């Protein structure tokens, strides 16, 4: 990823992250967040991105210092789910710019 001097000012792009998750081996679906899942442990003020939020994607919330990435996925029955989930988490971790505090939450809600 190209280093960017203005990283702090640019929130992570949910569409881009979602597209990356779809390419992860074993992922079959991305689902809307469940009510309990989007509860971020710390109280954060979300910086809403310019585009209207659609539901089936990675949810990015940040208070400027800490970024929380949350996603619900469906995985394939032909691939080991713990491995798939780990791959999704790693993909999201890789997307976080250096120096950012971040948490990644991935829930598998369907295996088919």
């Amino acid at each position, binding site marked *: 990823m190209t280093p960017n001097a203005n990283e702090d000012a640019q929130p992570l792009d949910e569409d881009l992250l979602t597209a990356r998750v779809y390419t992860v081996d074993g992922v079959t679906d991305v689902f809307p967040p469940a009510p309990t899942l989007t509860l971020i442990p710390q109280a954060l003020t979300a910086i809403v991105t310019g585009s209207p939020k659609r539901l089936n994607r990675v949810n990015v919330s940040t208070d400027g210092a800490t970024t929380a990435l949350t996603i619900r996925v469906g995985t394939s029955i032909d691939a080991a*789910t*713990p491995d798939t989930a780990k791959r999704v988490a790693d993909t999201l971790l890789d997307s976080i710019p250096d120096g950012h505090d971040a948490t990644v939450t991935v829930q598998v809600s369907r295996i088919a």
Partner: protein
Amino acid sequence: MNENEPRTLNCGKTIEELSAYLAADRTPYDPSIEACPECLNALQGLTRVSQLFHDLITQDVTDLPAPRENWFEDIMTNIHREVRSGRSLPLPHPDKRVDLSLTEGAVLALIRSAGDIVPGLVIGTCHLKGNVEEPGAPVDVSVTASIVWNQPIPDATRTLRTHIYEALATHTALNVTSVNITIKDLHRALSDENKEN
């Protein structure tokens, strides 16, 4: 006939009484009714009307126009939105910033799929007993299943148990200590309309 009064037979019994007697399957046996020809005629008439009414509704169902487009889909969309997730089963990840989990609902569906692979078997209820939210805690799986076709029960049970163990080992991080399978009666598995098939 006075429309506002329940009809009374010459013998003194009312249609309402006879209707209640019929609804109770004619028990306990009431000789004053069963020995009275007028009552017996009325009971026969009531039975016929009742049967006719069921025929009427059956006819309604046969002639039923299809619902509007998307009637069915609208119901299912709402249901999918409320899908029962159940508890959150942890999955491992070395990085402390990461929280991975699997829903109990997904695992129950997985177990049902394991049952679907075994021919002639239909899984009914599925239960994960134990503290599934704690990594490594012992978990007992309980499943009820019905044998639908003429399958030997021990073979089917053995196969199902193997499938379930394998599925859970592949897709979860659960510490499964037992898989308990209860096979229910064959004749309860089929719906009444399909018993002849």
